[in-house]
């Protein structure tokens, strides 16, 4: 029988949750890297026992950990993330230019086909690539040439948080950056261009339709339809049918179109999930009710999913990297909260159960479906 392994990154360590394919009973590991911030962990699609983890600390900086046995044991690999050449500057909060400074890795994205090829998204925003299993890292500097001098950090920092790879077209890479927007490369990361046409940020930018500067919170893609992208922007849920060349809003009847994560059902490319949050000023669910919203039409028409989720007095947030899907039938959906809960649905979102109640604040959740 298949098993599911959840890789949960938190403010104070990583946890691995495992279950059989029924997904009814879950086992929670002891903390890995206890006391450190684990922004993200992810397994290689090509070798699911190869895991990568971003471990960081305000005191002691960045580490990258690697496992070859599904998280039983770990080894530190390379932690030198050096911007290519003279790093240059980007826009600072006061409008002046500020040097690029490495702070941490927000997201790790292993290649679909090669366990030793992995991408890392950094704050200050840049994309790094390792071809030796994380031992050494090189920046793909063409990304910061895409008007990087105009990028400016939001209150949460200028992090590259989303990396989408197209398994059938390895030369295509999408990334998303707070607060710069979405960018695409069609030559394996050498050159990049902003793909933000159609985004409107009237409350965040002096020019609401600027080419860069949009606070994109997350983008998602179904592997079978790599030209269709879904986006949770600061405000607005957006969709592109042309690989990001243009976007249109699909917020529809959502109670709030502010939020962080967005994800796509494993088997239904038009079924998508978001977690509406009240506003950028109040980072918790509207009315104290934790509701996942599902659209089966690729946006615009949304239904609340509430069964098993707290429907009163709930004031947690769900962060951008903290939602994932497995590939079982029916599809499993998972998300973690800043209150330390991990919720799971084994039926595409129809009902939910807390499978962890009291973890540290959850930063990221990834699901692995194992044979």
């Amino acid at each position, binding site marked *: 029988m298949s098993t599911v392994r959840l890789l949960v990154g938190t403010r104070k360590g990583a946890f691995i949750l495992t279950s059989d394919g029924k997904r009814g009973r879950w086992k929670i590991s002891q903390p890995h890297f206890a006391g450190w911030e684990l922004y993200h962990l992810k397994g290689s699609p090509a070798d699911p026992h190869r895991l990568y983890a971003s471990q960081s600390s305000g005191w002691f*900086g960045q580490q990258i950990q690697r496992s070859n046995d599904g998280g039983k044991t770990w080894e530190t690999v390379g932690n030198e993330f050096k911007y290519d050449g003279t790093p240059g500057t980007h826009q600072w909060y006061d409008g002046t230019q500020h040097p690029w400074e490495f702070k941490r890795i927000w997201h790790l994205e292993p290649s679909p086909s090669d366990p030793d090829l992995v991408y890392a998204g950094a704050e200050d925003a840049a994309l790094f690539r390792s071809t030796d299993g994380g031992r050494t890292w090189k920046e793909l500097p063409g990304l910061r040439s895409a008007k990087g001098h105009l990028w400016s950090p939001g209150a949460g920092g200028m992090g590259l948080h989303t990396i989408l790879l197209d398994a059938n077209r390895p030369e295509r890479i999408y990334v998303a950056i707070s607060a710069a927007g979405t960018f695409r490369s069609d030559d394996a990361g050498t050159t990049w261009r902003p793909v933000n046409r159609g985004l409107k940020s009237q409350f965040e930018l002096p020019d609401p339709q600027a080419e860069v500067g949009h606070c994109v919170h997350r983008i998602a893609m179904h592997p079978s339809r790599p030209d269709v992208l879904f986006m949770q922007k600061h405000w607005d849920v957006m969709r592109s049918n042309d690989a990001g060349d243009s976007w249109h809003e699909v917020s529809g009847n959502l109670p709030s179109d502010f939020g962080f994560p967005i994800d796509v059902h494993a088997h239904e490319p038009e079924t998508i999930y978001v977690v509406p949050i009240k506003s950028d000023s109040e980072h918790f669910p509207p009315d104290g009710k934790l509701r996942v919203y599902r659209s089966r039409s690729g946006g615009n028409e949304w239904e609340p999913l509430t069964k098993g989720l707290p429907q009163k007095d709930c004031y947690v947030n769900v962060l951008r990297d903290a939602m994932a899907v497995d590939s079982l039938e029916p599809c499993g959906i998972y998300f973690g909260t800043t209150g330390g809960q991990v919720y799971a649905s084994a039926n595409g979102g129809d009902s939910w159960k807390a499978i962890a109640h009291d973890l540290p604040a959850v930063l990221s959740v990834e699901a692995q479906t194992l044979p």
Partner: protein
Amino acid sequence: MIRVVLPYHLRNLARVDQEVHLDVPPPLTLGSVLDALEAQYPVLRGTIRDHGTMKRRPFVRFFACQEDLSHEPAETMLPNEVVSGKEPFLVVGAMAGG
């Protein structure tokens, strides 16, 4: 032999459970001890000093013989008690406050 005491998280990274002992050729300076520490435990590179600039990370402190050496330059000679091994050199994670 120089005795170096690491903070909890760096002991875990270096996979040591007590103070570490280093043979450091003279002259014994702040910088030469850190160089030797990182040579013996490469995993600590980047955790105490930034890669590239080799500047002390902001929330790391260096103490020896009840003196704070954190703001001293790398060429600073260490006290004789540290050189002789009588006293340890301490790498400390700064207080978080609160």
